[in-house]
């Protein structure tokens, strides 16, 4: 009996000591990082910018009161010879323990990416168990990476959320940018047959104005953050920016397009028809019978007519067939333009090398080392597009066909 009491006593006391309080961190001791940015200054040191969430102000804003006093985020910068050193130097400015668990955005400056490349700076992020490998990576276009984090935004109160949200929306609606995670970047950096593409983001307006609360207290913001093209890398260095249809071509060949629009000329008139791609599938295959592989990109797109600005007879199936052919030509032209420019850049961002690797491992071994410089620019790339128009919305012909002329 005595035994049992002693045992019970030990069990009771043990609950005090082993109930998970080892290196405990209370929420009010943590500084929640929402985004990080890496720049390089003139002295050659890394500048790390950390965007911290101001929890009270975010919650207050959502309830409609309490906001307007102070911003939703606070930004700190620190310097160091390596990314991690910069991080530790930042602790001298912040009263709480930095917590990366909620960080979901890594911004890298264009200058750093162009001059030195991004290869050296990502290890610290990948290694840390606290940082997610699914964090988004973006390149700051025309601006310093740190400045991108300093600008306040409306609707999404945390700028990092705004950046991620914008990327996702443009990816879904138009396909000019795409979600690139830390893991994607590292995978493409290490792959011999695929180069890195990262979405760009830029500040429109005055940077100093963007830091102030007044910026978000107006209906039209002086300073806004915008998704801005795709950064094309070669061996870890930024070499080119693609915009508009050019960047959509990249996303298209990578088969990441979910929805997009194509504007067509018709019978001599420019930009008459708007076609909305609702679903598409792109397949890339390689024929390696000859010395130089032949790449075939097959696109199959399905969608609706969304805008007509002339008197096209959409009730006529033959007319629809003609429009489909025209569409195929237009998409083909756009994709081919993207391929040609990329071949001039000598950077295989489409992963054609990986396709060759898969279909003929023996030949790939010989081509692997000078793939980007010798083989990729000279590849013959066939683009085959099949486009289908299924519907045309709630009207058949446009009212323009009934108007008296």
């Amino acid at each position, binding site marked *: 009996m005595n035994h049992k009491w002693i045992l019970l006593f030990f069990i009771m006391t043990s609950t005090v000591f*082993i109930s998970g309080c*080892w*290196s405990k961190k209370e929420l009010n001791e943590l500084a929640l990082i929402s985004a990080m940015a890496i720049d390089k200054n003139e002295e050659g040191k890394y500048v790390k910018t950390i965007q911290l969430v101001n929890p009270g102000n975010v919650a207050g804003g959502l309830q409609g009161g309490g906001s307007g006093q102070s911003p939703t985020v606070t930004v700190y910068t620190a310097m160091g010879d390596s990314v991690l050193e910069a991080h530790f130097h930042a602790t001298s400015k912040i009263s709480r323990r930095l917590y990366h*668990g909620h960080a979901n955005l890594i911004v890298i400056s264009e200058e750093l990416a162009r001059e030195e490349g991004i290869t050296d700076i990502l290890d610290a992020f990948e290694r840390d*168990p606290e940082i*997610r*490998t*699914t964090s988004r990576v973006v390149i700051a276009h025309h601006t310093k990476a740190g400045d991108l984090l300093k600008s306040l935004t409306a609707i999404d109160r945390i700028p990092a959320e705004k950046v991620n949200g914008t990327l996702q929306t443009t990816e879904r609606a138009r396909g000019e940018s795409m979600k690139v995670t830390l*893991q994607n970047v*590292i*995978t493409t950096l*290490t*792959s011999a047959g695929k180069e890195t593409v990262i979405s760009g983001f830029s500040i429109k307006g005055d940077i100093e104005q963007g830091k102030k609360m007044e910026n978000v207290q107006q209906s039209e913001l002086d300073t806004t953050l915008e998704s801005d093209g795709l950064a094309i890398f070669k061996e870890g260095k930024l070499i080119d920016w693609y915009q508009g249809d050019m960047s959509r071509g990249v996303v298209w060949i990578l088969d990441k397009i979910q929805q997009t629009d194509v504007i067509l000329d018709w019978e001599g008139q420019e930009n008459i028809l708007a076609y909305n791609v609702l679903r598409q599938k792109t397949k890339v295959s390689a024929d390696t019978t000859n010395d130089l592989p032949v790449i075939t990109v097959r696109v199959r797109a399905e969608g609706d007519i969304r805008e007509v600005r002339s008197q096209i007879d959409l009730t006529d199936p033959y007319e629809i067939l003609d429009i489909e052919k025209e569409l195929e030509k237009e998409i083909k032209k756009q994709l081919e333009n993207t391929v040609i420019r990329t071949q001039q850049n000598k950077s295989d961002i489409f992963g054609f090398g*990986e396709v060759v*690797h*898969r*279909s003929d*491992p023996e030949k790939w071994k010989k081509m692997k080392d000078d793939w980007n410089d010798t083989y990729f620019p000279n590849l013959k790339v066939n683009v085959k597009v099949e486009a289908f128009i299924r519907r045309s919305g709630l009207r058949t012909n446009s009212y323009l066909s009934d108007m008296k002329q």
Partner: protein
Amino acid sequence: MEKAKISAYQLFILIVLFELGSALLVPIAIEANQDAWLAILIGMAGGFCLYLVYHGLYSYYPDIPPTEYIQKIMGSFLGKILAFIYVLYFIYLSARVLRDFGEMLITAFYWETPLFILNTLMVLLVIYTIRKGIEVLVRTSELLFILIILLGISVLFLIVVSGIIQISNLEPVLEEGIKPVIKTTFTQTLYFPFGEVIIFAMIFPYLNRPKKVKRIGLLAIGFSGLVLASVIAINVSVLGVNNINRSPFPLLSTIQTIEVSGFLERLDVYYILITVIGVFFKMCVFFYASVVGTANLFKVKESARLSFPLGLAILILSITIASNYSEHIKEGLHVITLYLHLPLQVIIPSLLLLIAFIKNKKKKSKQSKNLFPKRKYRLVERDKK
């Protein structure tokens, strides 16, 4: 030996949990690159053969554990030395599993906690379970097996739904030919995890239906081999070969990649549950074998009494076997496979089986010769009555 009985179904579960235990944790078969799953499947086929060897020995001596029948086969002196080596081997392996467990938790989640604390907690749990006996262990395994299956299915579902599987990462199949795959099999996957079922030779005597042992064991190895191969194939298809090669815990990285509709992410807890349950059972089985083996070898009547000292030994061993993680993994996947696993899992059991086979043949032929006189004797006895 305690008087306990295990059913065939319980053996199945125990073998499956044992096989998956630490194999899900560490990066196995990565030398075969994208063909790792193939190396596992070939290792599984080898595992079948090894299991038949262990089962063959068991069928000659169905009622006694290996530590005892080794002495019958090899003679008392040599047999005792060999049995002692096996007990040490089991102790070492359970220390290894314990270290795997601690390293995983520290690297990924408790990076400020000392290894000693985590390992102590686990060892205390294992000691407690083993003191309660093998029946308690298998009944616990029945309960937790259901949990593991549910977790596994839901993780698989989430991985598929989040669309991160890229089958193209598994291509090209057999890029360097079959050679590296075979090499990986014979230097690694055959012994770890499949050859380790040798430990179940210590448990066979407890089975209530010895006839089923063979079928159930093969089924369990087949099942766990398929699960393991598909998990590794999923890892490769999600992360790609390069990322796998750099990940100490590939399954964790795979699970961390899951993102479903913006809020189902960071599902690390799935990984913790699956691996901790698996490691717990693997460790329990190894530990139980060490305890029973020691008791049997040194004629200790109450084997449960040994669990505390042996537990302490394993705890200290688990911390001292390697000074860092790289050393631990390098030893586990490349050194001990050839210098410990190969002789102790393959060569010695095969030799034992051969000797047992010859010995028993002799016995049988002797028996058949004696058949007639015996009967005569019995008849005489009856006549007396």
